[in-house]
């Protein structure tokens, strides 16, 4: 396990990406907010609408706002064509810029409203045109207040930008999310520390500029501006110099298995001479769409997930028919090339602590029916929205007393501590064996099968050598090996390893 400082020092490229994203978002926010503020200062209606809208945006959780831009951009492709990116930088930029709008706009409008009326009368009296009044009087007198708004917006944006990890934009959120998934607290701490330090430094510099503007001290805001500009220039240079256009982009979802498999694929490709980039911690729907649009080249997905989410099917035709159906459907509808199955299933299953299961004599889901209303069920953040849950609920008529969302790693802790009685576990999860959990049987076959399959984007599928490099992975991983690898990452204390080293161990075991 890498130590805190070691991790911190390795975050250079995440930091530069974070700076470039935050600065662009704040810049865009300023470009939109300032003219809007000028307009608002001349019209009550505009002022009310603009401030109302900006406040409304603030009430949307940053994570939701970021996610919302995916469908928005997807629908905008009808106008701007298929090249419009729906993941990564663009949606992150737009969402964060919207978020930065309010403090800048509000401060600018307030500053204008609070200008001394005598000074404005004098400006008219000496014969200034509207533009001269704005540039010579209103702007310089409002500048310190506007700067204070930009300062607030910057601190918010730098914080919120950590969430852009979830829509595939690299930044300081990457170590935070990866650390949360694998319970590697050094990773989480390093990410939080770096983003907090960045926010503090930026706050300090912008504060210097703000005071310089208020005291009309040229050197004060000159130094502030100079350092900010230099920092930006270095970050821009570094992030563009780093960029490798030919890198194969591998996407992973928000759980350890997905991370391990992405590293396994990445290591396999790197050994064959490819350069690789990772987009970690993405949502299920986001990953599938990203592969379809070739924003991501490779991901591992599961038959049941694609069957219900993408094909919108609620029936259960059996394991083989489902896989064949998906391969055909993807080829005909999205252009995604399903290279094959990895060999194991990671199905949803309901798990209980052995002692609790014994208490209720629970062997199958049916056994829970009489007591379900006294039980609390825990699921990952997307589970209770998923068709699988709805299928199980309707097939058995299950009504739990309480439903709670946990991140996948915390779900098992919740089960241990009794905060949840039943959880939606995954069959390949190492903690099932380690925690001696009981998996409830599904006699009505409401839960579909979840074969892990390797999905290749339409663009990447043109590269025959790439497909050949990945061929040895097909059917190579059985569920025991996968559980072991998962547990080595998820466990606490001695023996806990990073997804990278778990992937190496896994590769050795399957003879790569």
């Amino acid at each position: 396990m890498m130590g805190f400082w070691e991790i911190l020092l390795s975050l250079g490229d995440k930091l530069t990406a974070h700076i470039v994203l935050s600065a662009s978002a704040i810049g865009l926010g300023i470009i939109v907010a300032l003219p809007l503020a000028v307009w608002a200062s001349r019209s009550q209606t505009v002022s009310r609408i603009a401030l109302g809208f900006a406040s409304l945006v603030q009430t949307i959780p940053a994570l939701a706002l970021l996610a919302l831009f995916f469908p928005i951009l997807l629908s905008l492709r009808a106008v701007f064509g298929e090249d419009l990116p729906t993941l990564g930088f663009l949606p992150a930029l737009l969402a964060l810029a919207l978020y930065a709008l309010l403090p800048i706009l509000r401060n600018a409008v307030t500053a204008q409203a609070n200008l001394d009326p005598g000074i404005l009368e004098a400006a008219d009296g000496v014969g200034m045109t509207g533009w001269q009044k704005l540039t010579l009087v209103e702007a310089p007198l409002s500048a310190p207040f506007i700067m204070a708004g930009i300062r607030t917006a910057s601190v918010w944006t730098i914080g919120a930008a950590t969430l852009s990890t979830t829509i595939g934009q690299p930044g300081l959120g990457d170590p935070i999310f990866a650390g949360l998934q694998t319970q590697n607290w050094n990773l989480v701490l390093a990410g939080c520390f770096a983003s907090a330090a960045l926010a503090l430094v930026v706050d300090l510099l912008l504060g210097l500029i703000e005071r310089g503007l208020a005291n009309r001290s040229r050197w004060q805001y000159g130094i502030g501006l100079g350092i900010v500009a230099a920092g930006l220039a270095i970050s821009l240079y570094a992030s563009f110099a780093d960029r490798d256009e030919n890198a194969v982009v591998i996407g992973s979802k928000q759980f350890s298995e997905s991370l391990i498999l992405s590293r396994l694929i990445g290591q396999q490709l790197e050994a064959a001479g490819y350069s690789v980039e990772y987009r970690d911690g993405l949502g299920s729907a986001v990953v599938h769409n990203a592969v379809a649009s070739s924003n991501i080249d490779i991901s591992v997905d599961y038959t049941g997930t694609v069957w219900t989410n993408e094909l919108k099917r609620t029936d259960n035709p059996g394991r083989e028919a489902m896989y064949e159906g998906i391969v055909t459907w993807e080829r005909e509808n999205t252009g995604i090339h399903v290279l094959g199955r990895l060999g194991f299933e990671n199905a949803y299953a309901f798990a209980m602590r052995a002692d609790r299961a014994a208490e209720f004599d629970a062997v199958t889901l049916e056994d829970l029916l009489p007591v379900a209303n006294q039980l609390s069920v825990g699921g990952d953040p997307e589970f209770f929205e998923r068709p699988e849950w709805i299928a199980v609920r309707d097939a058995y008529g299950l009504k739990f007393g309480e439903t709670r969302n946990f991140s996948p790693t915390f779900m098992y802790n919740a089960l241990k501590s009794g905060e949840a009685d039943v959880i939606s576990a995954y069959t390949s999860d190492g903690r099932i064996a380690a925690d001696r959990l009981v998996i409830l049987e599904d006699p009505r076959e409401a839960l579909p099968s979840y074969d892990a399959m390797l999905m290749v984007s339409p663009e990447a599928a043109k590269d025959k050598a790439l497909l050949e490099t990945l061929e040895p992975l097909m059917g190579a991983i059985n569920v025991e090996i996968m559980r072991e690898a998962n547990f080595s990452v998820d466990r606490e204390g001695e023996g806990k390893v990073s997804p990278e080293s778990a992937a190496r161990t896994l590769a050795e075991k399957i003879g790569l």
Partner: protein
Amino acid sequence: MVNTLVEPSGGRVLFGGEDVTSLKQSTLRRRVGYVFQGIGLFPHFRVGENIAIGPRLAGEKLPAQRIAELLTLVELEPEMASRMPDELSGGQRQRVGVARALAGDPELLLMDEPFGALDPITRDALGERVRELHEELGLTTVMVTHDMAEALLLADRVLVMDAGHLVADETPQSLLAGNGGDIAQSLVAVPREQAEKLAAMEDSIAERAKAKKQAKQGPSS
């Protein structure tokens, strides 16, 4: 209304024979020096820059020598040009306000209660100075005031407005002689009565002093 900061709801204001609403606003305002109660110095400009703003808007640079001259005209030190407005007293600021109004060699000096916010001594001194400048520079000056004494002492011609209507148009001499109607006379009565009361007070003080003196002298003689 003269410099169209307020649009007239009826009637016309003629400036050099032309309706002010027909002139280009910014040009008109540069031809009219404007001084008002709020003073309105630009706090982020130095005194000199404040004075030079009118010509600057017209695209000219006012030479430092001319700024010094204008400061001298309003009885300020030329060195004050490099100070910021918030370092000045209220009276000094309004002097700068007058200098700013004069900087563009205006055809008309428009003063809207210019001394309203100043202490009486500053107010009196600045009023006198403006009157002198009016003579020296051959200006046309329009001044709005609520203080009839100020009007009577400074003006050549006093127009009395009541509820938006002109009720008197007289010279100060004529007003003091009792012309101009009831409203004008009731306004003239205020400073006159004040002056009479003050004179009476002074008289009684003088008499008491005299009596005291006599009383002191009485027994000894």
